[in-house]
């Protein structure tokens, strides 16, 4: 006896997965293929002729100091966003778990930023951080910080980091809260009887037990910071000032659609695709096996 439940009609399962397959083909596989083809070509400025150049686009990328600088910017940006978003979400969820009154209120409002479109979040924070009319810049004046993200590269970087972090905290919060709630209450009680205070309990019991979730979120946050923050950067700084917030993804857009250097842009896309593939492999390999109890 097999426990396998199958369809009798062989067209029904195909019909059911067809929409998903179609979307994947049209929006992912086809463009990815196009990018790979294009990355080996050089096109003239008017788009009249293309020439096969092999790996030349890649070679020139790795000799381009701007590209390497963008790599560094992206790492800086992603690590800061991932760490900030993870730590603040963990702290928030640790406290949210102990709230007895108004639980729904807190949780609902902590989850809201996730529902805000990135461009809207970008414009919103751009207002707050505006050097002339922004609330945050006004407050920074009080502590004698001359806030100017339009000219100061590190100010601009902090601005996009904070906005991107703000958007990602909700997601992390949800996962951390669920993970913390799945730690049996009796473990906390046993630890309390063993003479461990609330902070020590969190560090020695809860935190190790939610490490699979933490690792999963770390990977997800990196992917988010690498790839999903385009809209925020586009709305706030357009990669400026002087490329200080130009991440790899933003550079793909900028070189391809503004600079019209399609070959180089496609080559950058292909490198990013390889990165995503790597992160995905890491996630599948370790999240499921290594860090589980």
């Amino acid at each position, binding site marked *: 006896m097999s426990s396998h439940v199958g369809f009798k009609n062989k067209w029904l399962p195909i019909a059911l997965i067809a929409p998903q397959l179609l979307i994947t083909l049209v929006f992912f596989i086809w463009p990815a293929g196009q990018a790979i083809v294009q990355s080996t070509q050089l096109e003239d400025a008017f788009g009249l002729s293309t020439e096969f150049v092999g790996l030349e686009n890649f070679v020139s990328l790795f000799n381009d100091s701007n590209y390497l600088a963008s790599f560094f910017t992206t790492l800086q940006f992603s690590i800061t966003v991932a760490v900030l978003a993870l730590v603040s979400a963990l702290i928030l969820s640790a406290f949210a778990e102990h709230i007895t009154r108004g639980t729904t209120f807190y949780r609902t409002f902590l989850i809201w930023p996730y529902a805000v479109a990135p461009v809207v979040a970008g414009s919103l924070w751009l207002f707050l951080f505006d050097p002339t009319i922004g609330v945050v810049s006004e407050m920074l004046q009080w502590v004698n910080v001359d806030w100017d993200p339009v000219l100061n590269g590190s100010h601009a970087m902090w601005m996009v980091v904070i906005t991107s972090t703000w958007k990602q905290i909700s997601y992390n919060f949800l996962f951390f809260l669920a993970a913390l709630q799945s730690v*049996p209450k*009796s*473990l906390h*009680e*046993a*630890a*309390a*009887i*063993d*003479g*461990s*205070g609330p902070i*020590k309990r969190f560090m*020695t*019991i809860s935190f*190790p*037990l939610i490490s699979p979730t933490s690792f999963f979120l770390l990977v997800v946050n990196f992917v988010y910071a690498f790839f999903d923050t385009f809209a925020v950067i586009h709305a706030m700084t357009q990669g400026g000032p002087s490329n200080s917030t130009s991440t790899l993804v933003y550079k793909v857009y900028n070189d391809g659609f503004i600079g019209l250097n399609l070959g180089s842009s496609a080559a950058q896309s292909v490198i990013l695709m390889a990165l995503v593939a790597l992160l995905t492999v890491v996630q599948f390999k370790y999240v499921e096996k290594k860090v589980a*109890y």
Partner: protein
Amino acid sequence: MSTLTLTNIAKSYANGYQAVQQLDLDINDAEMVVLVGPSGCGKSTLLRMIAGLEEITSGELVIDGQVVNHLEPGERDIAMVFQNYALYPHMTVYNNMAYGLRNRKTPKDEIHRLVTEAAEMLELSELLDRKPKELSGGQRQRVAMGRAIVREPKVFLFDEPLSNLDAKLRVQMRIQIKKLQRRLATTSIYVTHDQVEAMTLADKLVVLNKGNVEQVGTPLEIYDNPASLFVATFIGSPAMNILDAIVKPEGIEFGTSLLPGNTQLINLGDVKLGLRPEHLQIVEHNPLFEVEVDLIEALGADLLLYCNTLDAQPQALVVRVQGHAVIHIGDKLGLDINLQDLHLFDPITAKNLYFDSNLLQKKEVIYA
């Protein structure tokens, strides 16, 4: 060397539910106290209040002369064995046992000595490097015990520690717990709903019902003299037979039977009559009353006969006889009792009337 005194302890929740009501209890040094009762009787709540896991609404909890109401669980010097063991899944057996000692800043070599000793006592020495998920149910249970004894606390608290084990293991662990408690001579409080565990483990048995203490005593005191109908039916398996009877000036009448005697000391009217299954004897001649066998359960050593009285309104009762008695379903049996084995309960307050059985004399059965 530790004693516990509970004075007027009560627990009520925000929604007004009273889990424990005005409870008094004294626990002596090295005593094994078992809290027993059906689910929802407040026994676990009481234990958790003693542990410090639940706030005490009112009353005073004193351990060794010190009021501990507002002390954190870790400061009360108690250890608890949980129903699901609550072992730390990410730590080895050794670290599980060492965790509490480390929190108390015990020196490293002292921790090593204590853990090794406890592991030896519980036959866990081979398993010290394993994680809880690599252990069987019984082994996990022993680790939970080890975690408790390694700290040498003033009081052990057990919250239904055996209910997740299979029947055979449960009996083994029960005996091991009893031996261990004797050997360590540590004051212990044990919560269970299993009355066999309660009877076998307790030095002092506390029967709880709806947040109230129904009776406190040694297991045999409680078995022989249950203070109320609740205790009478809760302790003992199969439960005590309870029959409807009427106190009349000339004696106690149930069904068509009458126990003649001086009933002046008891209020006239309805009464509940209690008889343990093993106190009913089958007699050939001159029975007090007659029953018909409805169902037979053979337990090997004993035979349980589920019978109905031969009255207009038959009442059900269980008779325990020796395992190989030749009795069949449908047999009519004559039954007799010793008068001192008879209990009378007030039908309204459900309290034992502790009547003087010398006032009754058994006469011949009156057949209608």
